[in-house]
């Protein structure tokens, strides 16, 4: 057997940046030594277990905690009647136990704290909550009477953009596509459930939190508990994945800190898996209408992408699914619109490539439909629609590798020769097909600060509150420092994951390496200059240099900066059962300079794998009968398993873009999922000859269309 379709490149000697260095924490992770938030057990630690609301909307009329408190070993039961009062929350979704209102099923209404996990769970089960249940509405429809046009959508983008005269251009187009795509809600489901271990020492709060950014978590906790930020420390050393769901403060941190305050003990709270869908965010469902108008040459003259989605009554979060249509293709006449309706549902939030992942599914499926109509190769169609500047802003691209990614990806995949006829490739009971889709993700960079230290023995240390979710941040920051300092990687210590380190932005928006790396680069450059100025040996205490990138990032950029990519997929459709499997998948990415090919490849492949889940297996139903998400466990919410993922290759272009950051890197954590589901869906059309516009493509969806 071949276990080695893509050998790990050998380490390039002498140049840490670009080397396939192994993860610094790899040994700790494979030996079980790496500790995650729930695994810190200070003396006298106790355990907490939450109580979720069992009505879809209403008010708590009474909470009876007597039975729970009577259990031996129970320390406290917190409810809205006795929990510490929090200051005004920036994010109302973490204002837990502050009042009797229940905005959705699963909202936390109490917390039991006990000596043991078993007793805490039993106590939580013994809490009796009575509600005044109210009428609720959890069902998203395209024409929902309460839908409205939000001013802004996630990411700060305008909700609506119009360029030219779409209606006229569309009416006059020779060829048109008008298609509506439906995506269900999706859940991040990182393997580590959200967890916190919190304790108070005098007036100081320490929280080990499964957080994508402990600087922001620290600031948010300080604000909620009315403390100075110096009185709060948040530690996030190892995080068992997040994919956006740990990007913002979550209830477990607030509840654990409250419980620690009330009991005077360190408290660990790890959220039960079943409760996560209600309290740690989800990708909102989207109903997306795409209209394309083109000439016979396939060049787009009109493009409209209109999105309807939901948010909660707790806060407005609008999945920015129409935003990529502002970036991707030539479109002189364009309309991109989001409409949202606030329902009695859990609050949606970030999930890997919010906006781009669902939006590019729709846009790239529509492009495939157009290619079929025109009898034009879908790679060629995209090449014909390459814009000279970013369509919506008119700004020049700092670099745009889409055309090369499409061409080189097609070559590597063996895209051609391709018989465009759908439904003609048979292998026994299987129909085979191939599909392509493009990917894009913006380059986001946020101010961060870092400290670089040189010891007299020739060793170095960098300190920055970066977070390593499994992205390899720890490793790549060490590589950046080593490169700048001209030192071997093993001489550079990297300290990350604590809020008492220099402030840094959270791990989100694929911004980590660019944002943190820039600060590290700057600090190390300054340290190197300082060291080269010195004639005498370093003092005993060494030399420390700090830097932050506020100015550089405030200066902005005249460029439109995005990573691009192309996905190619081959699928099989079982004509007996409708079961679809991805046989092989290849992603070709143009994401600036790849700083560590080993960890980068893992991230690209990881994103593509999540894209397979989005295309084929994952769906979450908002239950119309009882409210709340129906599939709340990992037996019913189907993440892809090992057997679902066959050959996946990720490759990238050498892309030299001087307009990014000193490393020349673009973010890579999210682009792997963008367009992946469309490539699979387009391959399914090629295999089956039927266009299915609702994901996921489970057998029930496919069966009616089988030959």
């Amino acid at each position, binding site marked *: 057997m071949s*276990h080695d379709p893509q050998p790990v490149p050998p380490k390039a000697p002498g140049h840490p940046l670009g080397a396939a260095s192994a993860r610094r924490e790899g040994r700790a992770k*494979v*030996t079980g030594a790496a500790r995650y938030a729930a695994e810190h*057990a200070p003396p006298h630690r106790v355990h907490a277990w939450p109580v979720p609301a069992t009505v879809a909307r209403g008010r708590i009329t009474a909470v009876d905690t007597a039975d729970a408190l009577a259990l031996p070993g129970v320390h406290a039961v917190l409810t809205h009647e006795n929990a510490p009062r929090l200051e005004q929350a920036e994010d109302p979704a973490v204002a837990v136990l502050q009042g009797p209102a229940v905005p959705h099923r699963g909202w936390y209404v109490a917390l039991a704290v006990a000596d043991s996990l078993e007793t805490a769970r039993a106590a939580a089960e013994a809490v009796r909550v009575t509600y005044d249940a109210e009428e609720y509405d959890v069902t998203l429809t395209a024409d929902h009477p309460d839908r409205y046009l939000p001013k802004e959508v996630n990411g700060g983008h305008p909700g609506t953009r119009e360029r030219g005269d779409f209606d006229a251009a569309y009416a006059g187009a020779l060829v048109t596509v008008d298609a509506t795509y439906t995506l269900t809600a999706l859940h991040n489901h990182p393997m580590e459930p959200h967890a916190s271990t919190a304790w108070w020492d005098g007036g100081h709060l320490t929280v080990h939190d499964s957080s994508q950014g402990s600087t922001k978590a620290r600031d948010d906790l300080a604000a909620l508990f009315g403390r100075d930020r110096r009185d709060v420390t948040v530690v996030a050393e190892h995080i*068992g994945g997040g994919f956006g769901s740990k990007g913002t403060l979550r209830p477990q941190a607030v509840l654990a800190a409250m419980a620690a305050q009330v009991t005077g003990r360190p408290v660990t709270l790890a959220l039960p*898996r079943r409760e996560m869908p209600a309290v740690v965010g989800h990708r909102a469902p989207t109903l997306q209408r795409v209209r394309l108008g083109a000439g016979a040459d396939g060049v787009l003259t009109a493009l409209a992408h209109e999105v309807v989605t939901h948010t909660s009554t707790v806060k407005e979060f609008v999945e920015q699914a129409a935003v990529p249509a502002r970036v991707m293709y030539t479109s002189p006449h364009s309309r991109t619109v989001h409409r949202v309706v606030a329902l009695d549902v859990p609050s949606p939030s970030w999930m890997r490539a919010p906006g781009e992942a669902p939006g590019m599914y729709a846009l790239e499926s529509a492009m495939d439909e157009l290619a079929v109509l025109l009898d034009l190769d879908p790679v060629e169609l995209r090449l014909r629609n390459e814009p000279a500047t970013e369509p919506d802003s008119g700004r020049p691209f700092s670099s745009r590798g889409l055309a090369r990614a499409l061409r080189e990806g097609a070559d590597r995949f063996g895209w051609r020769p391709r018989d465009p006829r759908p439904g003609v490739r048979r292998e026994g009971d299987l129909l085979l097909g191939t599909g392509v889709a493009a990917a894009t993700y913006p380059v986001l960079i946020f101010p961060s600060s870092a400290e670089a230290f040189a010891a007299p023995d020739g060793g170095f240390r960098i300190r920055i509150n970066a977070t390593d979710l499994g992205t390899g941040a720890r490793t790549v920051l060490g590589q950046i420092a080593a490169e700048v300092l001209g030192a071997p990687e093993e001489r550079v210590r990297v300290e990350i994951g604590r809020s008492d380190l220099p402030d840094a932005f959270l791990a989100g928006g694929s911004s980590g390496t660019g944002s943190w790396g820039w600060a590290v680069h700057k600090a190390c450059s300054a340290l190197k200059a300082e060291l080269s100025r010195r004639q005498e040996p370093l003092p005993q205490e060494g030399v420390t240099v700090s830097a932050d990138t506020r100015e550089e990032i405030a200066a902005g950029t005249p460029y439109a900066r995005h990573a691009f990519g192309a996905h190619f997929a081959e699928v099989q459709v079982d004509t007996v059962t409708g079961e679809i499997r991805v046989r092989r998948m290849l992603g070709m990415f143009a994401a600036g300079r790849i700083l560590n090919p080993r960890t980068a490849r893992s991230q690209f492949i*990881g994103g593509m794998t999540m894209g397979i889940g989005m295309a084929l297996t994952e769906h979450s139903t908002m239950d119309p009968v009882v409210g709340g998400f129906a599939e709340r466990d990992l037996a019913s919410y189907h*993440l892809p398993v*090992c057997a*679902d993922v066959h050959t996946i290759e990720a490759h990238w272009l050498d892309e030299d873009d001087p307009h990014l950051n000193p490393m020349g890197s673009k973010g890579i954590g999210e682009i792997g999922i963008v367009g992946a589901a469309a490539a699979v869906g387009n391959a399914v059309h090629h295999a089956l000859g039927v266009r299915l516009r609702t994901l996921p493509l489970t057998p029930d969806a496919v069966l009616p269309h089988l030959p």
Partner: protein
Amino acid sequence: MESTAPPPDAAGPPPGATRSTVTLHVNGVPHRLTLDHRTTALDALRNHLGLTGTKKGCDHGQCGACTVLVDGRRANSCLLLAVTLDGSALTTVEGLADAEGLHPLQTAFVERDAFQCGYCTPGQLCSAAGVLQEAADGHPCHVTPDTAQPGAPVELTAEEIRERMSGNLCRCGAYPRIVEAIGDATAHPAAPPVPHAVHGLGAVSVHERREAAS
């Protein structure tokens, strides 16, 4: 099944008691613990023995993060009540490496970058160790050809590994690398046996009653 496990403790807990004292042999070390009957093997490891390498992902047998070896066989420790394991030998991720260094699977996982966040990794490793033994013992899986000789060792092709490892979810999507890493370990002469196993697999015997009667 449990044929080499010691006979049930004749004394046992007093009737009606909700706690019992049990001995768990974890990574070769006997631990005598008095535990609430509700305590799972997973929580006993994590909260009572400080062995937090074994992870809780779902607590319902749906993700595999808690996989350990019980008497040499892989199992979801979240669904095993510790009290039922009195006298059993457990191997956790902390017990895979020996004094010589990392287990070949651990080395291969690092080499292949077969993880990202690392949270499912201990379960993947223990599960993989179980897979190596199961294949060596001739246990088939869903994709093993019908024509395979019953009882003969199964060659761990990529397809075999993928199916056998499907009880271990990885949300980071490291599956292709995990399959490669396990493939590497199958080629390693020092792969199994896993240390600390009390006994291996294949404990079921078919009793030839007809022969005995004749």
